[in-house]
């Protein structure tokens, strides 16, 4: 049996549900040593800002049980270099591109949306709502306030060409992820990506100092999978028609099944790309095999299965 792997996120159709998570696959170039980047659903590129950014001081990472803490701080070359150097490479290899954008103001988000959506070959824009909102004191993120998050999504949606889908990338450590999701939907997000890293910290017990510079970092990896699955489940329950890309600790094909059953239409591999550079290809293979073992002929049938009684 050859299962039909295609999945649909609103207007966006992908040949299969396995994509990369933003910031965990560069622009595909490095992972292309390990598998054919065109074989997976899409590459979500590292969040790009308008200007080059040097990021945060080191140490930038620490290992934690079944996860890692990181603080890279949006280091990147800026949108010009991205569009001239990085994106063309990905497209030349037949890769599908979901371009993640990060702004430090509504204006920047609007400009990024205009520039990115104006470039041929961009399949979707993902809006990173975990950027600090300069209009709040103490660096709260846009995602911390549903109204501010909605303002960003609305700005991106109105500046982006209408045929390019806009996905809002949500944080899990917010007062109410369903409320945030609803605000983004109201602001005309075409889909939601969840979850981003969760704020946490580790102390280096050799030095007794915080293990990553600046203290707090973002926790990712299998450790956070239950938080991510919980968010996907609750949001899908509240808005079953909203397409979701699920992510957070995906390591195996079974994890893809778990996220899809909870309500995701596509599933992103993040941190595990670091520990296993062939992960995307392996996860896709394992997922395909598990569909066949279950006798499921269409991947999309799994979406939301955990919400249906008696499956």
């Amino acid at each position, binding site marked *: 049996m050859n299962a039909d792997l295609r999945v649909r996120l609103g207007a966006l159709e992908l040949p299969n549900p396995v994509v990369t998570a933003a910031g965990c696959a560069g622009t595909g170039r490095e*992972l292309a040593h*390990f598998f054919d980047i065109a074989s997976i659903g899409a590459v979500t590129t590292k969040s790009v800002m308008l*200007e080059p950014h040097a990021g945060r001081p*080191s140490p*930038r990472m620490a290992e934690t049980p*079944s996860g890692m803490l990181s603080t890279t701080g949006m280091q990147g070359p800026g949108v010009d270099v991205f569009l001239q*150097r990085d994106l063309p490479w990905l497209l030349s290899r037949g890769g599908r591109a979901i371009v993640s954008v990060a702004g430090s103001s509504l204006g920047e988000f609007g400009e990024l949306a205009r520039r990115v959506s104006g470039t041929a070959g961009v399949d979707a824009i993902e809006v990173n709502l975990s950027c600090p909102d300069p209009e709040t004191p103490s660096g709260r993120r846009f995602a911390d306030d549903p109204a501010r998050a909605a303002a960003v999504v609305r700005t991106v949606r109105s500046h982006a060409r209408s045929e390019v889908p806009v996905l809002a990338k949500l944080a899990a450590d917010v007062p109410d992820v369903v409320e945030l999701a609803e605000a983004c939907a109201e602001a005309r997000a075409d889909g939601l990506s969840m979850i981003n890293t969760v704020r946490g910290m580790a102390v280096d017990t050799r030095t007794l100092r915080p293990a990553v510079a600046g203290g707090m970092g973002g926790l990712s990896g299998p450790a956070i999978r239950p938080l991510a699955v919980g968010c996907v489940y609750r949001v899908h329950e509240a808005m079953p028609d909203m397409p979701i890309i699920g992510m957070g600790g995906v390591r195996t094909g079974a994890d893809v099944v778990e996220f899809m059953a909870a309500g995701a239409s596509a599933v992103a591999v993040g*941190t595990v790309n670091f*520990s296993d*550079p062939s992960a995307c290809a392996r996860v896709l293979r394992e997922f395909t095999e598990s569909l066949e073992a279950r006798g499921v002929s269409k991947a999309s049938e799994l979406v939301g299965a955990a919400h249906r009684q008696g499956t």
Partner: protein
Amino acid sequence: MSDNGPVQVRCPVLNVRRVDAYYAITVVAPGIAERFRSGQFVSVAVGGDHSSTLLRRPFAVHDVKPDYGGTVEFLFSVRGTGTAWLAERRSRDLLDVVGPLGRPFPLPRDPVNCVLVGGGSGSAPLFPLAQSLRRRGCRVDFVLGGASADRVFSAITARRIAETAVFTTDDGSFGTRGRVTDVLGRVIEECRSDAVYACGPMPMLRAVTAVAAGHGVPVQVSVEETMACGTGICMTCVVPVVGEDGVTRMVRSCVDGPVFRGEQVRFDDVGTIPFDALGAPGWKGSSAARATESTRDIA
């Protein structure tokens, strides 16, 4: 997919040896052995399939041999969970290894005199380098240091390969008491060295670079930053490096390094974002600089 890029292989352990304070593991990995150039490293998954230690551990390649189609040896001291697990491996166990990773040591075109400076397990990558240099007719001298006698790596091999080999220990238990940089200047003079290669902890690399600069000799350093991926996608391993164009960039030590020209590494600013680094608050982004950026090659 690309021809000389890294590969990921599940490879059998050929043997695990104790060498003084170190362990040496040899794996059968033809694909890595054939691509390897000295200065490159491998990264090894630790703890098994259901390990809670997610990240790979990077190790310099210490030796490559043609046996069994190609073997790769790396060497380590037990430091934490990952190395403790590795020390328990036995022949025929399988290890998941990715490599070769990183930029190799640039080799001189002419048969010049090279001094190779290593600290502790940081000495490992200098041995294949010594072989490559010798094959090009270079003179090789060694300066190896460590905390104590059992941490000075492969003294015998060093003596065999090199014209001269000088050793230092912090406790004076072997060779000269002191640091490699206490003797390096003299070695450069006596051996009329044309180039220095160094490997070890950041403070040592900084000091070696200063000594080499003092003698007007170019130096290549191999840095050891914590690395989450080793393949260039996570941006956690950056160090501030000044490019040919005078611009400081936060570059990835795993793919843009680990080997850099010593004087290009801003050692004093490691652990910070220099104010004038590309994309830092004090950076004067000219459109020219941006244009260069677009055409710069990335790994």
